[in-house]
């Protein structure tokens, strides 16, 4: 459903993403791993149109999207979360999630000013769907709290709810479990599985190798902006170059941690 080819992005002298080709198949959970600064987030930013690539093509559902503005890509059904949480902190959780449904709705100002039935109905629908999504990510009952006053982990859930509310075809998650403990990671893993269960394709960036191997159908590895591996999780993380660049030499401890999930 998503096909990137030769995607490149440079910042001054630094090539953050270098000729990356990646295919995402419908219905899968694809893990994107790699050392810090490998270009994973940058790659997401290119996919979602926040950065314009310096080279390469991207097609989504058979349509080229690399030249489209962000909001069009979002409306085409690709939603994301941000590594550095970007919520509207003073607004309620509910209002934050409603934002995610913008592209799915269409009533304009006149409808609102004139109080048209269609606008009202649409608004009700937005509320209902948002509430349902909030429940799905496990924040039921906290709809009215200011997003900024939630703890870090809960803020991540709101981020996911916002991206999820519009039932995107493709969901991009940037480190969804950062700052969560093992039990919470487990919950998040279940949530992501459930989301996929409803037909949403998922690409996720993670540093929790245990989780990635347990959850993902496929894993791609970026190092220094280049893709060095792509395939079955177990086989990928066993590759020596991946071990060297990302995991460090195998060590009981890492394996021990990984074994827990």
């Amino acid at each position, binding site marked *: 459903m998503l096909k990137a080819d030769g995607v490149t992005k440079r910042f001054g002298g630094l090539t953050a993403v270098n000729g990356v080709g990646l295919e995402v198949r419908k219905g899968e959970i694809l893990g994107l791993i790699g050392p810090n600064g490998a270009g994973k*987030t940058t790659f997401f*930013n290119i996919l979602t149109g*926040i*950065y314009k690539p310096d080279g390469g093509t991207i097609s989504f559902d058979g349509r080229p999207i690399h030249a489209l503005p962000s909001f069009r890509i979002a409306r085409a059904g690709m939603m994301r979360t*941000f590594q550095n949480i970007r919520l509207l902190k003073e607004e309620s959780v509910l209002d934050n999630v409603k934002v995610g449904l913008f592209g799915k709705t269409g009533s304009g100002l006149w409808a609102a000013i004139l109080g048209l039935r269609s606008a009202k109905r649409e608004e009700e629908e937005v509320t209902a769907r948002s509430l349902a999504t909030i429940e799905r990510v496990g924040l039921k009952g906290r709809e009215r709290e200011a997003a900024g006053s939630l703890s870090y982990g809960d803020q991540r859930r709101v981020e996911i709810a916002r991206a999820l509310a519009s039932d995107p075809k493709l969901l991009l998650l940037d480190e969804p479990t950062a700052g969560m403990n093992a039990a919470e990671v487990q919950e998040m893993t279940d949530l992501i599985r459930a989301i996929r269960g409803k037909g949403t394709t998922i690409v996720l960036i993670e540093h929790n190798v245990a989780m990635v191997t347990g959850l993902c159908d496929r894993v791609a590895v970026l190092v220094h902006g280049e893709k060095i591996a792509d395939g079955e999780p177990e086989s990928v993380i066993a590759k020596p170059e991946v071990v060297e660049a990302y995991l460090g030499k195998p060590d009981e401890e890492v394996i021990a941690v990984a074994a827990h999930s």
Partner: protein
Amino acid sequence: MLIQQLLNGVSLGFIYILIAVGLTMVYGVLKLLHFAHGVIYMVGAFAAMAGMTYFHMYFAVAFLFALAVSGAAGMAVERIAYRPLRGVHPITTLISGIGVAIFLENAFQVAFGSDTRAFPETGIDVSIVRLSESVSLTNTKLYIITAGLAGIGLLYAFLKLTRLGLAIQAAAQDMRAASLMGVNVNRVVSVTFFLGSALASAAGVLVAMNFNSLYPTMGAIPGLKAFCVVVLGGLGSIPGTIVGGLILGIVESLSDGFMTGMVVDKDAIAFLILIVILLIKPSGLFGKNIEKV
């Protein structure tokens, strides 16, 4: 004539630079929308005048006196009107600053009257410095240019070479993190205001002396122009402040010298240029815009 006009522009530009260096610290570096800068500039001019007229100081003493008075006034403004507003929408600072400006302008009108008054005799005679047959400059303008260069030098040394300079930049970006580094943020901000305001008052004194006039609302327009210069240069950039000031001065001087019957006046042209430059370079001439998502 063109050369003379360019020189006029440069010397006018240095007046703007002199006013803007102080603002570069406060607005450019600290990112505080400080609309009372023009008023501080006025306070400086009046302090020097009062020092000479009422306390019979020599010009040089009065000049230092003005720096001290304005510096203190700037610190007080920050303390009273800006500090309580940290962490809220920056526009509140702007409004608070406008309030301070209105207050002080009118207080000075009560104290000194709203008339324009002449600057006291400084003992410096205006003389004309001939650079060539047809190009000349007054000595007072040379002082302004010198002071402008000195101000810029001071700013550079302060920001680039001192620990405090770095701390100011850090505090501007993230006050909490700066305090976690052991920076006494309040003190750093106060010092910045002191220096920025002292520089503003240097400008006020020299301009009042050069044009032999001062009045309580004298800071309004220079204050706005200083904003224009700081933004034009790209917030907080030292070369930006110089180039911004020169552009403004030269544009005004050329439009005065060569154009007539326009639908907009020279101040408007200055802002027109500002907008055009910002459209081409959205972060100002020497500004950097970096965003990581």
